[in-house]
């Protein structure tokens, strides 16, 4: 399978994109921000961060491959950066999907957040599974580790957002 050699980039971009977006969503929910702000901040962060991450991936691949000045080397690095960017955007958008539906239909924000966590949890499980295949490690351990990372990031973000909101209100 041609795509197989790009799986590490897919895992790398997916984990980063999902964790980053989930943290933005959870932090914004903790700080009681509105639906539109959550979507705008989430999307802005997703695109800017995804692009800069893909660029840094490209730069590191090119600097690690200093001796290979061929077009083929550049093309390969570009492909890998492209996969990182695409997976960052595609999988990283999952935490925002339920909130996007909230733009068209009036749905309770807390319910949207719960659905978002559920969908993101499924995404983490899928990434964990692929990661186990890439690293040839235990599937269960990989899924649990990836899920734990997401839960930790979301918990931290929500806690900081909530704590800040309480602190500001008490001032």
């Amino acid at each position: 399978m041609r795509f197989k050699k790009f799986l590490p980039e897919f895992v790398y971009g997916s984990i980063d994109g999902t964790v980053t977006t989930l943290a933005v969503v959870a932090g914004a929910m903790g700080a009681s921000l509105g639906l539109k702000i959550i979507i705008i901040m989430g999307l802005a962060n997703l695109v800017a961060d995804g692009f800069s991450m893909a660029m840094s991936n490209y730069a590191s691949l090119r600097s690690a491959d200093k001796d290979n000045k061929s077009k083929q080397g550049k093309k390969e690095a570009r492909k890998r950066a492209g996969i990182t960017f695409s997976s960052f955007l595609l999988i990283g958008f999952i935490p925002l999907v339920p909130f996007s539906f909230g733009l068209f239909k009036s749905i309770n924000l807390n319910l949207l957040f719960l659905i978002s966590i559920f969908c993101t949890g499924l995404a983490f499980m899928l990434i964990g599974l692929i990661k186990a295949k890439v690293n040839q490690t235990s599937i269960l351990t990989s899924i649990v580790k990836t899920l734990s990372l997401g839960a930790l990031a979301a918990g931290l973000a929500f806690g900081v957002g909530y704590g800040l909101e309480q602190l500001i209100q008490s001032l």
Partner: protein
Amino acid sequence: MDTYLISIITAGLAGGVLRGLVGYFKYHFSYREVKFKPRYFLALVGISGLVGLLAAWITDDLGLTLLGLNRISPAIALIIGYAGGDFIENVFKIITGKTSLYLPKN
């Protein structure tokens, strides 16, 4: 310094703390055992605080409307601090040509 500015700086710094912790856990869980680098962590926290403060200052000073608001709230400064820190970290990685700024434990 007025209360508004203090709350904006605090929120931006909190965004930086969040970004630093999430970044550290991400590399710790995803890739390998990594070293915690306090100097880098503190630099990121400071930059995020500055990003939050700059966004608030620009919006306030130029009379801009950002996300439908005339004035950035501390909650938004928190998210801007987080996202800004993340973005600047990636720009730094482009310049240095590194995939990760967290070093593996040896």
